[in-house]
């Protein structure tokens, strides 16, 4: 993707380092980055809302997806980049574990885990962006909605795919069944990320991956980073399974409302198909994710039970924060996007 703007000293120092060659890593740049990261992690008031740290992590993670334009791909596994990720991830995970409200844990078992996940996701009283979209959103807000969503949806399903080789047995088969559908059963034009791109283009937005990174708030990056963190650590395979379950279980009905919102605003099937497709798809996925993925995983590896719920609770918590922020801005008559810093480019 096009290189996003830095949002503070850590992301600026990382971009400086990434401009150099990974084989001849300049030690002062690396040292500066390490010092700035340590300081920022010590000083951050709220890592979930920290623009600089979430941008730095997002940049480092993007090397694992589509790469950063002009940056040597060898940086992906470079020790300096991995150290940066590890430092931020440690505090990020700690914050999630402290703050995401955990339900009472059920006994491990397919039925009990699925029932507890349905209970958790059903009692989610988070803000309803979907109801607002269905009834009230203006055309401009609908565009903002798509821009905010584009950070994850243009790589929809990818963060959870990291977990496939990290799972075994029934849970792996269940994840593959869901992901195959996410990827359109192997048909490019039906891949969910591609359907989302079609929706964006349908309302006149640029569907290039990362085009809008600079205008989304830290919490939107945090939501995406959380998935990559859960998916790409084997230790956190329980969390990524729980995250997917909670995500799918809170998706069908909201997508129906999003579709209704875009129809209300006068858009046709080209724009609404993505949402309509998700009503049907996620009603299938939530069953598989709750029972066959999360339920089986927690039964086969009971030591992961807590993390299944940690992943689910974190997903609900972070997306709840993002939704609240979005609705607060809209109801106050302001934009939910951040103003890209046109003046500040890394020195």
């Amino acid at each position, binding site marked *: 993707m096009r290189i996003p703007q830095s949002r503070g000293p850590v992301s600026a120092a990382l971009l400086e380092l990434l401009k150099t060659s990974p084989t001849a890593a300049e030690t002062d740049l690396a040292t500066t980055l390490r010092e700035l990261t340590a300081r920022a992690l010590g000083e951050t008031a709220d890592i979930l809302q920290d623009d600089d740290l979430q941008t730095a992590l997002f940049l480092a993670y993007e090397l694992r997806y589509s790469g950063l334009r002009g940056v040597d791909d060898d940086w992906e596994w470079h020790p300096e980049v991995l150290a940066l990720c590890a430092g931020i991830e440690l505090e990020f995970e700690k914050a999630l574990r402290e703050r995401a409200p955990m339900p009472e844990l059920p006994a491990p078992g397919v039925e009990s885990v699925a029932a507890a996940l349905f209970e958790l996701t059903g009692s989610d009283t988070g803000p309803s962006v979907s109801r607002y979209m269905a009834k009230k959103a203006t055309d401009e807000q609908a565009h903002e909605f798509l821009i905010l969503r584009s950070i994850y949806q243009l790589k929809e399903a990818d963060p959870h795919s990291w977990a496939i080789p990290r799972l075994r047995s029934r849970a792996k088969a269940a994840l593959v069944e869901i992901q195959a559908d996410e990827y359109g*059963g192997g048909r490019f034009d039906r891949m969910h990320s591609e359907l989302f791109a079609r929706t964006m283009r349908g309302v006149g937005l640029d569907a290039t991956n990362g085009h809008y990174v600079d205008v989304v708030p830290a919490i939107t990056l945090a939501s995406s980073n959380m998935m990559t963190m859960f998916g790409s650590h084997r230790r956190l395979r329980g969390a990524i399974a729980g995250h997917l379950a909670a995500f799918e279980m809170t998706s069908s009905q909201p997508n129906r409302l999003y579709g209704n919102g875009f129809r209300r605003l006068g858009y046709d099937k080209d724009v609404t198909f993505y949402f309509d497709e998700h009503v049907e798809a996620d*009603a*299938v996925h939530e069953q598989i994710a709750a029972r066959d993925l999360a339920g089986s995983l927690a039964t086969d590896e009971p030591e992961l039970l807590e993390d299944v719920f940690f992943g689910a609770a974190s997903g609900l918590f972070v997306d709840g924060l993002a939704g609240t922020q979005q609705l607060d801005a809209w109801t106050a008559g302001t934009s939910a996007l951040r103003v890209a810093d046109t003046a500040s480019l890394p020195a």
Partner: protein
Amino acid sequence: MTEPDEQPAQRWDDQWADQPAAGADEPVSITAYPNGPLLVRGTFEILTPSGEVIPPRRKTVALCRCGVSTLKPFCDGSHKAIGFKTEQEPPAPQPPLSA
């Protein structure tokens, strides 16, 4: 030019002749998910009352059994909103109906 091997390559379904090939003529399985839809997997067609095929959008579909879906015959997740409850599954497999 090398001679072709005399032994024809074995197709994998020769080895698993007693099992259906994935994708092709796979017998349909229907799984009842507690308090939710029926998940249907395999090779099947869903028809409208007048006999037209409803084009399948995915390999595994969820059929509504609570009656309130707005996407019938498919489930749209509405069963959760109405608190749809199914009976406990029978503990032991039931005797098969005569084939």
